[in-house]
């Protein structure tokens, strides 16, 4: 069962454009939704995260939009730059005493062209 579905699989955006990546989740008990950025040969690094009590969170050029009723959330990268070219993973987890195991989407390979 794929708990977090991510689209598109790949994305090409021109420099200065807006990159949009979408995710949908199934488990309504999830209460933490991070986005991770991964460069080749590196581990995933937290980019931005949101909890379901807010509908939007913005940090610099990165914005998460969250729709609890639709069980969807998305990442918007404004003014995309070539340095943003990486793989982006959405994830979801439960807040529990056993830890915060992340359920990842399949990833989106973003290429920002000059």
């Amino acid at each position, binding site marked *: 069962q794929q708990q977090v579905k991510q689209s598109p699989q790949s994305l090409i955006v021109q420099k200065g454009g807006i990159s949009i990546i979408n995710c949908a989740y199934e488990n309504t008990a999830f209460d*933490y939704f*991070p986005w*991770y950025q991964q460069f080749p*040969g*590196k*581990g*995933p*690094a*937290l980019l931005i*995260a949101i909890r379901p009590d807010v509908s939007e969170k913005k940090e610099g050029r990165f914005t998460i939009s969250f729709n609890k009723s639709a069980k969807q959330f998305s990442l918007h990268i404004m003014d995309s730059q070539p340095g943003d070219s990486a793989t982006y*993973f959405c994830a979801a*987890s439960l*807040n*529990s*005493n*056993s*830890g*915060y*195991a*992340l*359920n*990842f*989407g*399949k*990833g989106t390979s973003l290429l920002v062209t000059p």
Partner: protein
Amino acid sequence: EPEVTQTPSHQVTQMGQEVILRCVPISNHLYFYWYRQILGQKVEFLVSFYNNEISEKSEIFDDQFSVERPDGSNFTLKIRSTKLEDSAMYFCASTSGFMNTEAFFGQGTRLTVV
């Protein structure tokens, strides 16, 4: 900046051999995790570890896998009898604890089983 460190960066082993992957989580963190990423696929949760015991594990984490915190700093993943399909990038991660769910990932160990 604190970081999670993993060794070795690349391990080649013959099928059927035992391997131990090592991680040093961030020093004041309480939860530790292993994830794996088969080439080109999503990051998958294997196991979480808290208070010197496994707190959660996935279906992937079968009897051939084990984890240990042999001292106050290291966190290891042992694969007893490696199979070709164990070839993947293995990531260690840690989180500080309750209410702070940001997971910090190491750079990974690429395991190649031949």
